[in-house]
């Protein structure tokens, strides 16, 4: 008898396997399948957000080792508010990158929106809500104009938005006139965007619980719909595992934020925007059209999609998000000036989207990459500031991280090519 004595009962001839053994075998098979899928994805260059999470962990550990204040509740909370302006702009960039295009005008548009708001509200006395709305619509309008020249006239997006970068900056300087810096109302709505915190610890924890529950319910509902049609569905254990991971992440964030001043309003709005737009990208006709255009314009055209309309709308979203980001940035410094939206804001926004895992080549990405990328960039900025080294170092480190992200993007694309994809 060569069979080992401790062989599972199910493997002995004749007797039917016990229920436990069978479920253990099924579980093991499921785990193996998961590992195999993960390995295949890794080899095929579908890394998703794994590299950016690893990178973020590395950056946090290095800066914490250099300065013990880095991972303090106060600093992490500040990072979470500071990243919102760039992050909002990066969300718009994600949409444009999904088409395989680029929008270089977002920095200027954000400055233009901030200036428009300041002039309308402070100088002309328009009500704050209306002025903010007009400023955001100005951003949308810049997107419509650029989208029109790109989609209908056929000018490459790079050139259209480069012209936009100059023109919108010029328009901003024109409407600011000789006023120079305009200070916003410290108690106003826009200023509150980045200065308001939900001091009650219950708010952060309640939202964390609600978010976890929502994640579980959506996953469970999807899985049940699929099972009712006889399609392969995620096992309950898999959903539970992912829900647990989400729970750990959001409750840890809530705990840290509550140790400072509570959940920042800016972060809450940013999360809601990211989740809502991700839902549009993944689950709606419109989102499917965006991915389709990124995967093959000709194929999308032949399938009857309205290519020009989708393109114009995507540039409109980019302009709108740039304006929203501009308001958050103005809110953070409680002013708008001739330097609003200048400097390396544009580069940071594009870098955030790419670092977060959205491909420069179109068709791959998610709005979460804007959040993760903005978090990485703001972490570097904050860490460098804590160490008291000059901005020169910040630029070089951010540049290095961006290069690394693009290298990962290109390598994963090459891996996909090697697998006969693309």
């Amino acid at each position, binding site marked *: 008898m060569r069979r080992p004595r401790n062989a599972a009962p199910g493997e002995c001839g004749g007797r039917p396997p016990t229920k436990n053994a069978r479920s253990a075998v099924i579980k093991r098979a499921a785990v193996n399948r998961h590992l195999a899928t993960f390995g295949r994805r890794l080899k095929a260059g579908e890394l998703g957000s794994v590299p950016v999470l690893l990178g973020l962990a590395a950056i946090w550990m290095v800066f914490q080792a250099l300065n013990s204040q880095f991972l303090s509740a106060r600093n992490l909370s500040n990072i979470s508010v500071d990243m919102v302006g760039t992050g909002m702009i990066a969300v718009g960039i994600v949409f444009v990158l999904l088409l395989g295009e680029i929008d270089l005008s977002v920095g200027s548009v954000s400055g233009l929106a901030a200036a428009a708001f300041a002039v309308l509200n402070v100088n002309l006395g328009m009500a704050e809500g209306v002025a903010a709305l007009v400023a955001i619509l100005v951003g949308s309008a810049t997107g419509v104009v650029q989208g029109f020249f790109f989609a209908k006239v056929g000018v490459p997006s790079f050139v259209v938005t480069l012209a936009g970068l100059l023109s919108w900056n010029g328009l901003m300087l024109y409407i600011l006139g000789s006023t120079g810096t305009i200070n916003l109302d410290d108690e106003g709505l826009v200023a509150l965007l980045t200065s308001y915190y939900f001091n009650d610890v219950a708010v952060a924890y309640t939202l964390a619980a609600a978010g976890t529950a929502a994640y579980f319910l959506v996953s469970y509902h999807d899985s049940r719909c699929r099972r009712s*049609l006889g399609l392969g569905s995620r096992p309950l254990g898999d959903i539970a595992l992912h829900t647990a991971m989400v729970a750990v992440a959001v409750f840890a964030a809530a705990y840290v934020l509550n140790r400072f001043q509570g959940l920042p309003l800016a972060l809450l709005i940013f999360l809601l925007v990211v989740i809502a737009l991700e839902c549009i990208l993944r689950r709606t006709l419109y989102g499917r059209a965006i991915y389709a255009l990124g995967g093959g314009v000709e194929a999308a055209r032949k399938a009857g999609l309205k290519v020009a309309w989708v393109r114009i709308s995507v540039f409109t979203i980019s302009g709108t998000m740039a304006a929203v980001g501009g308001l958050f940035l103005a809110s953070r410094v409680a002013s708008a000036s001739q330097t609003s939206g200048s400097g390396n804001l544009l580069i940071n926004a594009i870098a955030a989207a790419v670092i977060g895992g959205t491909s420069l080549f179109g068709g791959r990405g998610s709005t979460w990459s804007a959040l993760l990328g903005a978090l990485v960039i703001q972490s570097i900025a904050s860490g460098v500031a804590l160490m008291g080294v000059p901005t020169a170092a910040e630029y070089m480190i951010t540049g290095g991280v961006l290069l690394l992200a693009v290298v990962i993007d290109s390598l994963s694309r090459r891996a996909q090519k090697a697998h006969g994809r693309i």
Partner: protein
Amino acid sequence: MTSGATPPLLALRGVSRRFGAVRALIDVDLEIRAGRVIALVGDNGAGKTTLVNVVSGVDPPDVGVIEWEGRPVRITHPRDAQALGIATVHQDLALCENLDVVGNVFLGREIHSYGFLDEPVMENRTRDLFRMLSARVPDLRLPVATLSGGQRQTVAISRSLLGQPKLILLDEPTAALGVEQTAHVLECIDDMRDRGLGVLLITHDLGVVKAIADRVSVLRLGRNNGFFDVNTTSQEDIVSSITGATHSDFKYCEQDEIDWEL
């Protein structure tokens, strides 16, 4: 004569299309009937793909009439063709590499409620379609970029069958395929004919023409250069018509058309 009783599914009359100085199609006529496979052959640059683009609405004609079931129609957008019941499998397959199989099959015709995609239902219908074609794809949720040439062809053909079309245009469906996969595609085409669909099959392969087509229409330098009945025409005649060794004149074609109708 029965031609008065049932008008052809699709008829092109005097269709021309030019791209700048290049005349891609000149005064082309074509008739396709339900339950028939018409092969469209011709050398490179004869205008075969342009003709497909004209009928599928990708590239509307400059001049000429398109008749659908006997009445003139205008096809100026892929949607118009889809609405009539014309499905197209383009030579480049027109698949979005980054979308999964289900996404590609339903591209442009997604099932949704209030704009939100109904993925489970779409996946279910894709699975049924693939079963009907007895086609195999490892996973309907894999991006199309991971599939082999034959599998991509299957995806493109399943997509064309989705809206229960009456006419299918296949632009070189077997060009990139091996022997076994070609045989499978031909079975699919045979199956379509049995179900009463009209099929326009573009191919370079006269073996495929002999194996599956009922009629052959030859294009040469953008013009009609003969209609043949596959069963009564030798391969040499078709070849000489493609290469221009013979110029079949139009009277002969019409005569031939009538013979076929009887």
